[in-house]
């Protein structure tokens, strides 16, 4: 009973669908469970990092990893503030998400990891232990979600722990990009790139889901969905479900693709910008931008989607170059500054200037 995304989520390594080579690789990792290295899985959003990670754990520890529970842990900062953090854990692993703890992730990393690392696991699965020499499950896995948002301090705190306690603890870090991971961590991990599925792979998956759910669909619509989802499988499946339910379970090649509202708004804005290059338009854009920001859409995403939408609507190559240049400039400004509205509006104004001349 859940969304199709969750319903058709593979639970074991064998069931993983796309990027077969990677699956074989992970299977070979799991067969030598006692030698599991620290892992750093990286890849775009919706490519199945977490799914693979859980499947890998399942292959090593058995289906007990899906018996999840939440503990509330308390930490004390040096300034004597109490922090509360929800830690998701199973008997074999635990998960932390740095964005939950804000600036204090260093303390959490230090305390939590040390605590886990200093406790040796007692292996109750005697059957499997005898096969692999009784040492296979001595360690506990710690999954760090969104590892790219770990602060530098926290990453530094991680370094030594990873080596010192590697007997008892294995880290699996998941991140979208590796650029903000410091080099010492990278060198301690086995880097695994999880690519997003190709269009044909996405289409295969969509077809399978459709068959199981009894949705009749024309082949072309899959192509469209795969295109619009940009290799994001989660997005593709959600779109499929939304469209199927809204079109009486039968998709025609002409059915409109359902996009999230915020994306629709951005596309509209892009059209508007290219048509009407005036201050009045700028004011309207500003209110739209405020609306988007208020809905917690990250400024970076807004800029990115807006730039792509603009590129789609422009035919001239020199103009495309100019837009790209603007976008990259303002992306940097967004990163360095902390007033997104200034820079987003600045980007729009610059683009208006560039395209009108």
């Amino acid at each position, binding site marked *: 009973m859940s969304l199709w995304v969750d319903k058709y989520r593979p639970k074991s390594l064998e069931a993983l669908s796309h990027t077969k080579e990677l699956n074989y690789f992970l299977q070979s990792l799991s067969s030598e469970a006692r030698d599991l290295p620290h892992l750093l899985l990286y890849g775009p959003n919706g490519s199945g990092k977490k799914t693979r990670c859980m499947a890998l754990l399942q292959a090593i520890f058995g289906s007990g990893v899906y018996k999840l529970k939440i503990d509330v842990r308390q930490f004390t900062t040096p300034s004597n503030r109490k922090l509360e953090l929800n830690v998701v854990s199973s008997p074999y692993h635990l998960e932390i998400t740095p964005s939950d703890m804000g600036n204090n992730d260093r303390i959490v990393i230090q305390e939590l990891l040390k605590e886990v690392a200093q406790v040796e696991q007692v292996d109750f699965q005697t059957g499997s232990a005898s096969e692999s020499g009784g040492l296979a499950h001595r360690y506990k896995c710690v999954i760090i*979600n969104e590892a790219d948002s770990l602060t530098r301090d926290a990453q530094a705190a991680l370094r030594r722990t990873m080596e010192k306690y590697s007997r008892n603890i294995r880290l699996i870090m998941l991140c979208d990009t590796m650029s903000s991971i410091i080099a010492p961590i990278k060198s301690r991990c086995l880097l695994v790139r999880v690519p997003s599925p190709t269009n044909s792979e996405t289409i295969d998956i969509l077809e399978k889901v459709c068959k199981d759910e009894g949705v009749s669909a024309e082949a072309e619509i899959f192509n469209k969905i795969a295109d619009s989802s940009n290799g994001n499988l*989660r*997005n593709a499946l959600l779109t499929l479900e939304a469209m199927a339910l809204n079109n009486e379970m039968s998709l025609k090649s002409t059915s409109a693709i359902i996009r999230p509202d915020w994306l629709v708004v951005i596309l509209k804005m892009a059209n508007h910008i290219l048509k009407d290059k*005036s201050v009045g338009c700028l004011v309207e854009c500003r209110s739209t931008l405020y609306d*988007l*920001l208020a809905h917690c859409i990250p400024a970076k995403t807004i800029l990115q989607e807006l730039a792509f939408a603009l590129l789609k609507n422009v035919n001239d190559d020199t103009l495309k170059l100019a837009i790209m240049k603007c976008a990259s400039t303002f992306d940097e400004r967004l990163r360095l500054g902390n007033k997104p509205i*200034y820079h987003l509006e600045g980007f729009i104004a610059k683009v*208006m*200037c560039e395209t009108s001349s």
Partner: protein
Amino acid sequence: MSFPPAPQFGDSILFAKPSVSEKSFTTSQGKVIKLRRKTRRDDVAVTWKHDESYGIDINKLLDLVEASKDQKSVISRPGSKQRHQSILWTEKWRPKTFFDLVGNERTNRRVLKWLRQWSPLVFGETLPKAPSTNWHSKNDTISEDPLLRPNKRILLINGPPGIGKTSVAHIVAKQAGYSVVEINASDERAGPRVRDKVYNALFNHTFDNKPVCLIADEIDGSVENGFVKVLIDIVNHDYKATQRLISEGSLKGKRKGRKKSFNLLTRPIITVCNNIYVSALDKLKPHCEIVTFNRPVENALLDRLEQVCRKENLRLDKKALKEITELAQGDIRNCLNSLQFLASNDCSDPSFTSDKDDQSKDTSLSWYRICNKIFKRDPHVDTRHQFKSLLRHVEANSNFEKIIQGCFTLYPDVKYSDNGVNKPSMLSDWLYFNDRMFNSLFEHNGDLIRYSAVVPMVFFQHFSDIANKEDLRIKTNDYELRERQKSIADLLKLICARIPIGARVYMDRESLIQEILPLLDYIIAPDIGKIRNIQLKQTILNSVVAAIEGLGLGFGETNEAEVANVICIDPPFHKISILDEKRLKEVIIKRPALLNLILAKVQESKVKKRTVSRVLKENENASVANKRQKTSKGSNSNPIEFFKSQYGTMQKKPDNQSVEEANADNTSENVRIWVQYNEGFSNAVRKNVTWSSLWQ
């Protein structure tokens, strides 16, 4: 024939003692009307407390005011000769009585009314009933306080500085007959020390037999919220004591109530602050009657200043006075100070007014005034000069962030010459510069932030125009944006917490906001009105229900918008996912019908699940019971039954083997049988049970 007017409520006739001179006359209908002569009241010096009531005659009040004015002018005239004295005028002309207060009449009266509500308790008076019945009856139902105190025990006066909040509090307290105890920011206000002081003031008796009114001044000033905490403690204690009083008062009378009366708050507390939104006051606010003071109307202020000028023999024309009030922005204290300054300098000449810009403005120009100034180019002043003075203002204000934010908000609305959007695009570079400079606050101790003062000048250079008005309103989007972001983030957290954990590990914040919730919005609201095929409808509904349950969403009712009590999804995630206004309306208008269907489906599936689980459980129980029966060899689990059966077997044995009958009897005599009695409960005991009781 004209009828004599019927005596009005509040007319002094009601209060006059029956005098000798009474007349009666008969109307045409033969009705006799008695008339009494009005007694004249000459005593002007009657204290306020005496005759203040809701039914007071307004004319008499005005007379009183006039009279008191006259009196005062008589007193103050001799003093006005000597101009150079050591008292500050702000102290000298501080209002002494209720009638001296300038402006804010309504709020002043609110303060007085609140304080009057204490009178029944403190002075043992009874308040006159208010004439307007519906208002009073409403109030009556709320206040069930046994001591007839006002509902909110603390009065919180707030407003900008210098408009007489402290004065009002003092005067009203005095007027109502209290002696004032003031605790202000100059006193030690940390924790236990202030507690003693407050308790002394509130619960002990004073020497002069007057009840005490505690005035806590400037409570927002203290960073440590120890003082506020003390106040909250008092209110909470009082609340508990009152509850006890009510419950016991109805049961046992007053005997016990007296013992606890130490906790009861029996004296009024007035608190004064400038900023009511300080976080320290958050917890206090719900216990307070909040009275907000606004700046007095300019005319009232002008009258007052003129009065002072007259009394002080200071000749200033109306224009100058007006300028002073404008400068002070309604701050009476400030006005009086500048008046005194003028008086001491004896420079009541117009040169003051032309120069005012340099004299007093430095700090008093607020950021929005500066923003307006930036966009207004003065045609009479040299641009360079204007630039200079503006720069000085901006630097003096030093609230660059606000100024720039204001300019940014304003510039699309103002008139300026430009072709296309060149200027805004150029501006973006400067805004980036500002952003970087502002960041230095976190990196280089803010050394670079002063360079931000340049950015408003860019606005001035490019966007200022003669045609612009000077009173543009600035909407502060920034604050609103932050608030909305916060509320959405909170909502997201709530939703996140309700998602079942198996699904939650696969979702992060970003994907929830950007993909799952927006698309979920379409998933749960398919357009099924047109579908004829019932089976298809059911499968779609099933999928929707699955989606809703998979994310742990529930159903609730909205109470926003025009239509109340419309069904909606419980954490209202459409607030996150929907940006289009048209679709937002649909949520309220169209969706409820669909949701009702879904709700029915959800409940159906729940019932189904429950029955299935019950059946499963029953099966399980049955199998367990079966097993147990097998293991216990057909005997029941009940201990008594067990013993019975045991006894039965024992009895049977002798039947079979009659030889050992006697022996068996003997052993059964010797064996003591222990029976567990109430095991597992707190009153579990081990006791000997007589044999016969086993058959009871």
